[in-house]
């Protein structure tokens, strides 16, 4: 660190970073430029515009395991508002930049690029560029204006200079800035980062956010109607809508210029009052804006509502509500990759295209970080991977991405500690997780386990069944016999009580024989009485040869105890025949296994049908409704 005395006021001014050549005196605002051994006072630095940045010189942080301190900044004005580039001094000696605006943070480093850089005039949105093996797409081209510098900086800066810049977005949240304010364009390459990942300390404190006090607002009179207007966004918002007359007031303009006026036919009351704070997984946020948008599909307007949430450190979040279904939404700088089938891939997950439509704003109250206008429209494309949604908004070539996640209405009510009821949930939300997802997966696993058990039982049955021929005899039948009945010798059935298969075969052709049979237990006198018919016919007709019936038959008597048995057979028929009787003990069978499999499969099939029905209802309002293979059922799933 090098300390010098300010030539203008004598105060001590420190150059903490060896790469810093400029420092602004904190006491007299003189701009000091460091030469080899002297400092030169090149005049007063312009005054910084008061903004709502949570950063300040002296903030400490960490990026990829390397500590840094904030030593200075350049404050720039873009068309969309103020953007700060904070000069970082890393503990390993590197110098870097932390871009910050509205809760968006991006770390970048000055890089030397050997390949030629396109001129500023040739750049346009959507153009693809390759810088150091990385592919980028031009997102925004505009001339920013430097408002002022603060602290120490690695180059000379003066308020008011124009900085033609282009913002490029790469893959995986990487970005690049092309700065054409010098003869040779400067290239800064880095990535967007999350606030929490920077582990920042010594942050600027905001009264109503640092000590759990009640929300603080700035109140002023509407320049159009004189009504009371409040601003909650701590100088991070750009426009505020007068609740009385609908005037959109530019709060970044010192004269509070009226940009436009909303002329809503009917007022829409937000389900959550403005100024309410809610606690979400990534922090506490205050509701500062509300708007209603709509799309028109086949002549029908579909309205949904969006709630803008604000945290001075983490920026903005959105809550969207449609038919009582809520999504918690956050901007993302991870550019998704479009797939050939219209779907998109984001952070390793595939999001299916749900719908695309031109959305228009038709009602607003509260404040916003852009200059909201009545009727402003953008092309919105939604992709879903329930419970997540990826939205791509294209406003005149300016493309922005956001990711949302479904929230149960009860979770919304809990987050804001609401006592009033939220809109009733109707139908199935685009990102609503199917209540059957987990159950279906578990039922599927259980069904597989049950099937495996059933198969094991069946295999064990096949392996251990006796399946034994215990008796067989061939008998003859003559219609003219005075006594047709026959009895067999006694045979023994062993083992547990199980089935007995009686198989019969008769040499009947174009004839039948009916066998009235009784399997009689010689020990107990219990008879199993049954009858079987064997008939076999064949011939030819105009269609060719045909046959019907069979010369064999089998019947299974269940649960026959062990013992000594004989079979009584009483044949009946019109032609003489010989017939064979075979007795099998404990014969394995497949029908019960198949019935069991069927019974087991029914349950998951029903669950699958219910799950598909849920998806049918989900996609019914998309650009890709599913085939009408079933009734959609009731509308209200509450």
């Amino acid at each position, binding site marked *: 660190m090098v300390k010098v005395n300010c030539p203008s006021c004598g105060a001590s001014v420190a150059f903490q970073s060896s790469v810093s050549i400029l420092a602004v005196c904190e006491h007299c605002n003189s701009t000091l430029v460091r030469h080899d051994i002297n400092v030169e006072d090149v005049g007063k630095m312009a005054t910084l515009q008061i903004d709502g940045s949570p950063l300040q010189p002296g903030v400490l942080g960490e990026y990829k395991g390397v500590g840094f301190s904030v030593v200075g900044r350049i404050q720039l004005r873009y068309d969309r508002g103020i953007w700060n580039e904070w000069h970082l001094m890393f503990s390993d000696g590197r110098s870097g930049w932390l871009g910050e605006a509205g809760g968006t943070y991006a770390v970048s480093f000055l890089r030397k690029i050997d390949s030629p850089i396109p001129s500023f005039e040739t750049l346009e949105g959507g153009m693809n560029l390759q810088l150091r093996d990385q592919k980028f797409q031009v997102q925004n081209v505009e001339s920013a204006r430097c408002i002022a510098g603060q602290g120490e900086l690695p180059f000379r800066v003066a308020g008011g200079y124009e900085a033609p810049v282009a913002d490029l977005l790469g893959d995986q949240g990487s970005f690049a800035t092309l700065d054409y304010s010098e003869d040779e364009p400067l290239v800064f390459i880095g990535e967007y980062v999350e606030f929490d990942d920077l582990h920042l300390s010594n942050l600027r404190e905001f009264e109503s956010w640092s000590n759990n006090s009640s929300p603080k607002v700035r109140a002023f009179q509407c320049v159009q109607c004189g009504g009371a207007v409040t601003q909650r966004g701590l100088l991070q918002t750009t426009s505020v809508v007068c609740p009385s007359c609908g005037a959109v007031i530019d709060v970044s303009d010192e004269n509070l210029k009226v940009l436009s006026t909303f002329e809503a036919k009917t007022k829409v009351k937000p389900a959550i009052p403005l100024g309410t704070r809610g606690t979400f997984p990534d922090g506490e946020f205050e509701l500062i804006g509300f708007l209603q948008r709509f799309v028109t599909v086949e002549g029908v307007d579909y309205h949904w509502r969006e709630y803008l949430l604000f945290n001075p450190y983490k920026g903005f979040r959105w809550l969207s509500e449609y038919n009582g279904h809520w999504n918690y939404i956050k901007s993302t700088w991870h550019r998704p990759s479009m797939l050939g089938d219209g779907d998109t891939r984001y952070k390793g997950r595939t999001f299916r295209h749900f719908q695309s439509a031109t959305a228009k704003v038709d009602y607003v109250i509260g404040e916003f970080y852009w200059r909201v206008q009545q009727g402003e429209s953008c092309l919105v494309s939604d992709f879903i991977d329930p419970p997540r949604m990826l939205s791509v908004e294209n406003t005149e070539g300016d493309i922005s991405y956001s990711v949302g996640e479904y929230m149960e209405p009860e979770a919304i009510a809990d987050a804001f500690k609401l006592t009033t009821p939220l809109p009733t949930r109707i139908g199935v939300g685009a990102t609503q997780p199917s209540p059957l997802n987990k*159950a279906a997966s*578990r*039922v599927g696993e*259980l*069904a597989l386990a*049950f099937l495996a*058990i*059933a198969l094991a*039982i*069946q295999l064990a*049955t096949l392996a251990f069944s006796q399946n034994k021929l215990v008796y067989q005899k061939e008998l003859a039948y003559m219609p003219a016999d005075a*006594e*047709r*009945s*026959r*009895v067999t010798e006694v045979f023994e059935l062993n083992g*547990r*009580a*199980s*089935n*007995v298969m009686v198989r019969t075969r008769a040499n009947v052709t174009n004839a*039948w024989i*009916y066998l*009235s*049979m*009784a399997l*009689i237990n*010689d020990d*107990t*006198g*219990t*008879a*199993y*009485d*049954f*009858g079987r*018919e064997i*008939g076999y016919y064949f011939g030819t007709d105009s269609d060719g040869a045909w046959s019907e019936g069979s010369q064999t038959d089998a*019947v*299974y*008597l*269940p*649960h*026959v105890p062990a013992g000594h048995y*004989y079979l*009584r057979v*009483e044949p*009946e028929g019109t032609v003489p025949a010989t017939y064979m009787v075979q007795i099998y003990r*404990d*014969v*394995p*069978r497949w*029908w*019960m*296994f198949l019935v*069991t499999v069927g*019974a*087991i499969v029914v*349950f998951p099939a029903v*669950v699958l049908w219910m799950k598909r029905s849920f998806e049918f209802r989900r996609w019914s309002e998309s650009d890709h409704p599913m085939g009408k293979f079933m009734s959609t059922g009731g509308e209200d799933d509450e």
Partner: protein
Amino acid sequence: MIRAFVVFGALVLSAFAWGTYTGAGYVQYEEIRDVPKSIRNNPGVYRSVYSRVPHK
């Protein structure tokens, strides 16, 4: 739902195991007790339940 399926599956598998073990099946038959031993010597005296079943 999971519990119901577990119960249902257990019942189905139990029935399957029991049916397989005992050789359960469906066939039209009558169980007649105390058939006299004389049938072995004179089978014609037995009157089968199914001897009068209409057929072709």
